[in-house]
């Protein structure tokens, strides 16, 4: 099948793509680094990665909505400048115009091309019927459920008969059952050759979704976003989630995504990394305790397979991996090839009462999160035991985007309060030692 695909005409070709946001006085924040992507006719390709891995940015570069900082993007051999004609996009948030009816929303792309009214209505009707929206033509998006709204988004994209359909996490705002129906409907249409598109590129953070739908998966690593691995999915449609080969591939991808990024040549050339250059995931202490208790109890007894755990907790990769990595940071758990193991320290934590837990957490926080330790040291040195949060955020911003810096600081405030390492005055934006013994 590969050979067949690669001999087909090439739709989009991205070479050496880099996207960076300039930040004054400091090094640029690199979102995408040296990404290559070639897309041929007749394939569905997934960009799979955690949030912040730049996969949505790549999708916008492909669509021509965003111009990359460096690298070249060609569409059917011609360089892309501005929104490409043969590309239509489906949005995570649906992006329907609330003041237009279903029919008008679907027609808007044709209207923009100056398609005649009667032709427009005919094509819209076809697309609406194909995607299962018949009877809803006069409804406004507000009146529809999430699943129906995304069908409108799909119809709107398909009606212009794009060569390439881009989908930005199209099912992640939907509940599990609705998402599954939409996925299978879409794949059925694709297999029957009814989709008026040549190729599909979708962004997702859902591993099973990627394995279920796509022919090829590009796994992204974060910070900066790079293509870590490229995988082919050899199964024919319709695919069975319970098939052992399917499960194995999902397991493998979990393994890839939990692997520590290799300290390759990049690290050697980069400037010495500050201990502060460590973005923290927004993970609460309750959910950490909850996961550790779950791991310690039956049926896991200290070791769990990540996909199985994600399934039973109804968690997506984006929820589970940050949680696992945070536990790993505190040495409460270890991630190993798609499994999570509770450490002895983790067990002690689970068995402790509130005070003991706080003590353990506090120790771990000071040991493994340099910023937490630094804040406490500054507070101890100050005569009034107060310090502004702004300076710590500024320092964080030297190493990460302002959003990450704000998130990291917010997370740290929550952890520090729980550990009773320091207190925080939101209004004055100051750390302090009030009510801390």
């Amino acid at each position, binding site marked *: 099948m590969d050979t067949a695909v690669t001999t087909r005409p090439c739709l989009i070709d991205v070479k050496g793509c880099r996207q960076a946001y300039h930040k004054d006085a400091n090094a640029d924040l690199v979102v995408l680094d040296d990404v290559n992507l070639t897309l041929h006719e007749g394939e569905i390709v997934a960009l799979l990665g955690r949030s912040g891995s730049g996969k949505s940015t790549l999708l916008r570069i492909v669509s021509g*909505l965003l111009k990359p900082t460096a690298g070249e993007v060609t569409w059917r051999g011609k360089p892309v400048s501005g929104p490409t004609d043969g590309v239509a996009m489906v949005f995570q948030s649906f992006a329907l115009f*609330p003041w237009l009816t279903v029919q008008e929303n679907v027609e808007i792309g044709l209207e923009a091309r100056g398609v005649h009214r009667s032709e427009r209505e005919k094509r819209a009707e076809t697309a609406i019927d194909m995607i299962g929206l018949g009877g809803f033509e006069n409804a406004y998006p507000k009146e529809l459920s999430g699943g129906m709204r995304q069908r409108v988004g799909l119809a709107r994209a398909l009606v212009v008969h794009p060569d390439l359909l881009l989908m930005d996490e199209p099912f992640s705002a939907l509940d599990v059952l609705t998402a599954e129906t939409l996925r299978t409907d879409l794949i059925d249409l694709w297999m029957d050759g009814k989709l008026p598109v040549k190729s599909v590129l979708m962004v997702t953070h859902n591993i099973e979704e990627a394995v279920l739908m796509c022919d090829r998966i590009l796994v992204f690593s974060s910070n900066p976003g790079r293509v870590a691995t490229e995988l082919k999915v050899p199964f024919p449609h319709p695919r069975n989630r319970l098939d052992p080969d399917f499960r194995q591939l999902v397991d493998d991808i979990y393994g890839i995504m939990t692997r520590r990024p290799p300290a390759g040549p990049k690290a050697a050339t980069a400037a010495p990394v500050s201990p502060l250059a460590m973005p923290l995931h927004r993970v609460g202490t309750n959910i950490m305790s909850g996961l550790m208790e779950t791991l310690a109890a039956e049926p896991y007894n200290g070791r769990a397979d990540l996909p199985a755990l994600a399934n039973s907790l109804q968690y997506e990769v984006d929820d589970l991996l940050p949680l696992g990595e945070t536990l790993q940071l505190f040495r409460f758990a270890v991630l190993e090839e798609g499994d999570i193991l509770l450490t002895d320290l983790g067990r002690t934590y689970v068995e402790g009462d509130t005070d003991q837990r706080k003590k353990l957490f506090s120790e771990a926080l000071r040991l493994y999160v340099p910023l937490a330790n630094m804040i406490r040291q500054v507070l101890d040195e100050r005569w009034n035991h107060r310090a502004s949060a702004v300076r710590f955020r500024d320092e964080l911003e030297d190493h990460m985007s302002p959003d990450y810096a704000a998130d990291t600081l917010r997370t740290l405030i929550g952890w520090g309060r729980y550990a009773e390492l320091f207190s925080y005055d939101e*209004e004055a934006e100051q750390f302090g030692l009030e009510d801390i013994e």
Partner: protein
Amino acid sequence: MSATTNYSMAAGWRLPNVWDLVAFVCVIGALVGVSHVAAGTLTRIDAPGATQITLDPMNLPAYAVRTTLRMFAALAASLLFTFTYGTAAAKSRRAALVLVPVLDVLQSVPILGFLTFTVVFFMNLFPGQVLGLELAAIFAIFTSQAWNMAFSMYQSLKTVPADLYEASISFHLTSWQRFWKLEVPFATPGLVWNTMMSMSGGWFFVVASEAVAVGDNTWKLPGIGSYVALALEEKDIVAVGWAILAMLVVILAYDQLLFRPLVAWSAKFRFETTAGATASDPWMLRLMRRTRLLQFIGERVGDMAAYIGGLRLSFTGRVRSMTSPEPSKAVDAAWIAILLALVSIAAWRVVLFASRAISWADVGEAVGLGLITLLRVVVLMILASLIWVPIGVWLGLRPVWARRAQPIAQFLAAFPANLLFPPFVLFIVYFHLSPDVWLTPLMVLGTQWYILFNVVAGAAAFPGDLKEAAANFRIGGFLWWRKVIIPGIFPYYVTGAITASGGSWNAAIVAEVASWGDTKLQAHGLGAYIADATDKGDMARVVLGVVVMSTFVVLFNRLLWRPMYAYAQRRLTLG
């Protein structure tokens, strides 16, 4: 950690005394100002200097202080009104029957027309004293501030979340405690915003209300408004310039010292649990939080407020459960009967009064002039929209520009446009232009900015994914305006346009008549009619003019803006 970050910390905390000193000077200065004004207020009206003013710019700071204090006195009265009237309307179903429509009509009545009579009323209360004049001026300002504040309070109290209400009942809070612990905090953000808007509206009236002519006497209360009036009489354009400068300084000062901190502070009462866009604290709020003295005062005030709000007072006896007993039908009937009787008496009085002094021809004339003013308002709204909507969209879609433009537009909306009339009048006189056409733009001079800043806000809030979708489907040109951005900003536009058109009606009274020394320019219109009747002391015609204008405004609102607003809310809002 770097050495550079330590310095600011040290400056902020080791030397609080500098800030204390600044605060101390401010407080003493304010006290001196207030006592000076109080002394001026309690003198007799014929005392030397009590109602005379000079065009010496050196006096302007003192005038500015007096004007500002009048504004704040009116604001205090408005707050009192808000907490009583707004609360009564929200709490009592029967009271709401009357209070809400009355408030709605009061909003549309151009009180400016009644100025002469309120002055006479207050002067009779305090014969021969400046206090009467002061109260009349304060009352005029009050009438421009109170209504929207009361409405804001009413609406907030009506929308207190049911779960918080249930929680307050289940913890046995008395109605007094519930009012201060739940309802007032919940209403605070809206109230602060409306207070700020009211303050802007008040300036317009200050200028008109400080210098009043009753019969043959003209009194000028020391203040910026009188200063401008005198400058106009004496054709002193430089003095007008000084007055504008003084006004700029005052508006900038209270905006920075009072409203920015208040708005930032009130954000903590916002009910949404999602973190909104958090702007950095205004410098004044930082000063108050970092200055020991101010912090101490603030804490004491807060403690006292908490104590008073925590008193277990109750006005409705025992704390009742949510399901109050069926309202008594008999009491309802009695209440409606009383109302009907009162309305009948009022109607009878009006008819008696009107039949004596007003003929049908007068009514016809007033309505005819009203139509002319209506035409002006409509043309102005169309012109202002054509100009400001594209500019607002352009600015709003560029975040950097939107951030710059927003405060400027808000400031311009706050600036009393009647101060800017003199240059226009000069222009019209110089070129011998037709007042009927060229006085018209003055009506919208101060109010057009509401359209601009609302459109900027709308365009800035336009969702990014819709922008991307429009770009992805290559929607451009006229189609983009028609199907993408205009529907997107429409709810914001309507909000701005309602304010702008209401303000323009009110402005007609001062904008259709303008003078420069002995030259008097007059346009044909209802505003000029009212102003003319006021000058002549013709009570009947003033009332007629005001009634006709109120009717026009109410009809304009009901037939055009309300349906548009409802449509925008129903169809064009996201989510």
